[in-house]
C-alpha cells in the first residue's frame, strides 16, 4: 500500500489543532466511503463466508453445517477441473503475456521506424472487452469455418486447429485469446520501464563492447523488476476474475473442460441455486487472492523502504 513518507514535506497537512472543526467536514465527506468499505466490502464478504458454512440452497439458511460445503466442493469434479484450468490458464497466460510483451517492448525500444504505429497495433486489443475478444477468437478457431478450413482449402489437408471443440485443448484456446488481448498491456509497462533505464548504462556497456542481447539479459532486464511485478500482479488479478472470456469463447465447454472458478460460482449462485456451495467456492477464491496479495504487499513495502533509504 502506498503510504506517505513521514519525513516528506507533505507532513502536517491539515493536522493543526485549531483546525478541528473544519477537519470535521473532511471527515464527513469520507463517511460514504466508510459505509462502502464497511457495508459493501467487509459486510458482504462476511455474509458470504457465513453462508458457506450453512446448508443454503436457493435461499439463505441459518442451519450451521460446518465445513460440509467445502467437503462437497472438493468432491465436485467440475470444481476440481475449474481449479486445474485456473492453474493451467494462469501459468501459461501470465508467462505468455510476459514473454510476448517483453519481446515486443524490447523490439520497440530498438529505435525502429513506425514505432507509434506498431505500439498502437499491439495495444488495441486491450481496449476491447473480453466478450468481444472471446467472440472473435471463437470465430477464428471455429473448425468448420475458421483458420482450419482456410488452411485445408489452401491444400494443407491434414491441418488441424480444433482446440475450441477439443476437450483436452479448449483451455489453451482461452490462453491464446487472453494472450492476444493482454500482451499489449505488458508491452506498455515494460516499455515504460525500458525507457526509464539510465542511458549511461547503455553507453558504458557499448564502450565495453558487450553485445546488445547480453546488455538486455544481464543489465537492463534485471532492473525492470518493479515493472515486471506490476505486470504479473495485474495479470494474476485478471486470471482469478476470468469469467467473460470463457463465457464468450467456450462457455466452459466442451462439457466442463474449460470451466473456471468464477464461472463455477456464478453458475451455482444463479443457475443451479446452490448458494452454500457457491459461497464456499468464493471463499476459497478470496483466500487465494489474499495469498497472491501478500507477496505483492511485501514487494510494495520493500520498494517504499528502499525509496526512503535514499537513492
Amino acid at each position, binding site marked *: *500500500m*502506498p*503510504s506517505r513518507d513521514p519525513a516528506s514535506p507533505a507532513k502536517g*497537512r*491539515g493536522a493543526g489543532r485549531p483546525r478541528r472543526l473544519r*477537519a470535521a*467536514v473532511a*471527515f464527513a465527506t*469520507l463517511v460514504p*466511503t466508510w459505509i*462502502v*468499505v464497511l457495508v*459493501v*466490502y467487509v459486510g*458482504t*464478504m462476511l455474509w*458470504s*463466508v457465513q453462508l458457506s458454512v450453512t446448508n443454503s440452497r436457493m435461499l*439463505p439458511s441459518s442451519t450451521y453445517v460446518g465445513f460440509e460445503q467445502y467437503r462437497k466442493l472438493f468432491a465436485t469434479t467440475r470444481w476440481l477441473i475449474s481449479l486445474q484450468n485456473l492453474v493451467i490458464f494462469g501459468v501459461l497466460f501470465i508467462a505468455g503475456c510476459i514473454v510476448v510483451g517483453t519481446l*515486443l517492448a524490447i*523490439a*520497440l525500444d530498438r529505435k*525502429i521506424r513506425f*514505432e*507509434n504505429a*506498431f505500439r*498502437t497495433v*499491439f*495495444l*488495441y*486489443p486491450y*481496449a*476491447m*472487452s473480453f*466478450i*468481444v475478444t472471446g*467472440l*472473435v477468437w471463437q*470465430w*477464428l478457431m471455429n473448425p*468448420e*469455418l475458421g483458420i482450419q*478450413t482456410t488452411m485445408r*482449402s489452401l491444400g494443407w489437408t491434414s491441418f488441424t486447429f480444433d482446440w475450441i471443440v477439443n476437450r483436452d485443448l479448449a483451455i489453451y484456446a482461452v490462453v491464446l485469446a487472453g494472450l492476444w488481448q493482454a500482451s499489449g498491456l505488458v508491452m*506498455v*509497462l515494460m516499455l515504460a520501464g525500458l525507457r526509464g533505464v539510465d542511458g549511461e548504462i547503455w553507453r558504458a556497456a557499448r564502450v565495453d563492447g558487450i553485445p*546488445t542481447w547480453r546488455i538486455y539479459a544481464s543489465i537492463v532486464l534485471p532492473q525492470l523488476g518493479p515493472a515486471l511485478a506490476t*505486470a504479473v500482479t*495485474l495479470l494474476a488479478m485478471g486470471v482469478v*476474475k476470468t469469467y*467473460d472470456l470463457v*463465457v*464468450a469463447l467456450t462457455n466452459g465447454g466442451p462439457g466442463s473442460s474449460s470451466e473456471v472458478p468464477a464461472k463455477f*460460482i456464478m453458475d451455482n*449462485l444463479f443457475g443451479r441455486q446452490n448458494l452454500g456451495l*457457491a459461497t464456499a*467456492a*468464493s471463499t476459497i477464491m*478470496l483466500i487465494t*487472492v489474499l495469498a497472491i496479495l501478500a507477496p505483492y504487499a511485501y514487494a510494495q513495502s520493500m520498494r517504499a523502504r528502499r525509496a526512503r533509504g535514499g537513492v
Partner: protein
Amino acid sequence: MAAMPHPRGPKPEGVTAGRAGLYAFLAVSAAFFLLPAYVMVVTSLKTMDEIRLGRIFALPAHFDLSAWVTAWSGACTGLTCNGIGAGFWNSVKITVLSVAISVIVGAINGYALSFWRPAGAKLVFGLLMLGAFLPFQIFIYPLVRGFAAIGIADSLAGVVLVHVLFGLPLVTLLFRNYYAAIPVELFKAARVDGAGFWRIFLEVILPMSTPMIVVASIFQTTGIWNDFLFGLIFAGRDNLPMTVQLNNIVNTTTGERFYNVNMAATLLAALVPLVIYFVSGRWFVRGIAAGAVKG
C-alpha cells in the same frame, strides 16, 4: 516517448541481419494482433453464402452493409429481434452515469485523503484498496439481496451503483496520487486566506485537476463499457448493456448462426472503446499506467 526520430550516436550502418530480423519479428507480431480485426471487418461485409465457402481471409466479393443494419436493429436474442442498438444506448446510459458519479466522488475522496487526512483516513484508504483486489464473486450474492431489499434490483440505478462502488478504489487512488504531487503551499495559502474544505476544492484544486479527470474518465469509461458481469447480474432485462446483448445474440443456441451479423455486432460493441483508444492515445496509456502503478 518517440519524439526523437534521429537518435544521437553513430549513424546506423545500413541493413544488418539483426535489423532485418527485428522488423520481421515486428511484422509477424503485428499480423497476429491485426488478424482478428481484419477477419471481423471482412466477415461483416460478406453475405452468408460467401461465408459458407469458408475462406475467412478473403476479401468480400462485393461490399454488403446489410449485416450491419441487421446487427444494429434486427438481430435476434432468443425470441426478440431488436438488434444491438438498444443495448448500445443502455451502455451509454450506464457508462455516462457511472463515470460521472465515480469521478466526482473519487476526486472528493482523493482531495480529502491527501490534503486533509482526517482521522482514520489511512485505514479507510487501506481497506478501500484491499477491496479493489478482491474477487467480485465474494460480494455478489449479498449485494443482490441488499439491492432487492432497498428496491433497486434489476434497475439502471442498481447497475450504476455497483459500478460506482467497485470503481471507487481505483478512482480514489488516481486522484489521491495526483493530488500528492500538487504543491502543498497552494493549499496552505488558501487555508491562511480562510477558505474552507469546499471552497479550496472548488476554486483551487478542481481547476488543476483536469488532466486526472480526463485520465480517470477514460479509464472508467473503457472499463465500464466493457463490463459484462455487473450488467448481467444487476441491470435487469430492460437495461442490459451491449456486452450482454452481444453475447446473447452470438451465443444463441437456436437457429442458424449469421456470422456476418455477429461480426458486425461485435464490431459495434467494440467501437466505443476503440474510438477512445485511437482518439485519446497517450491518455489511454497514461490511464493504464496510472491504474497499474499502485502508489
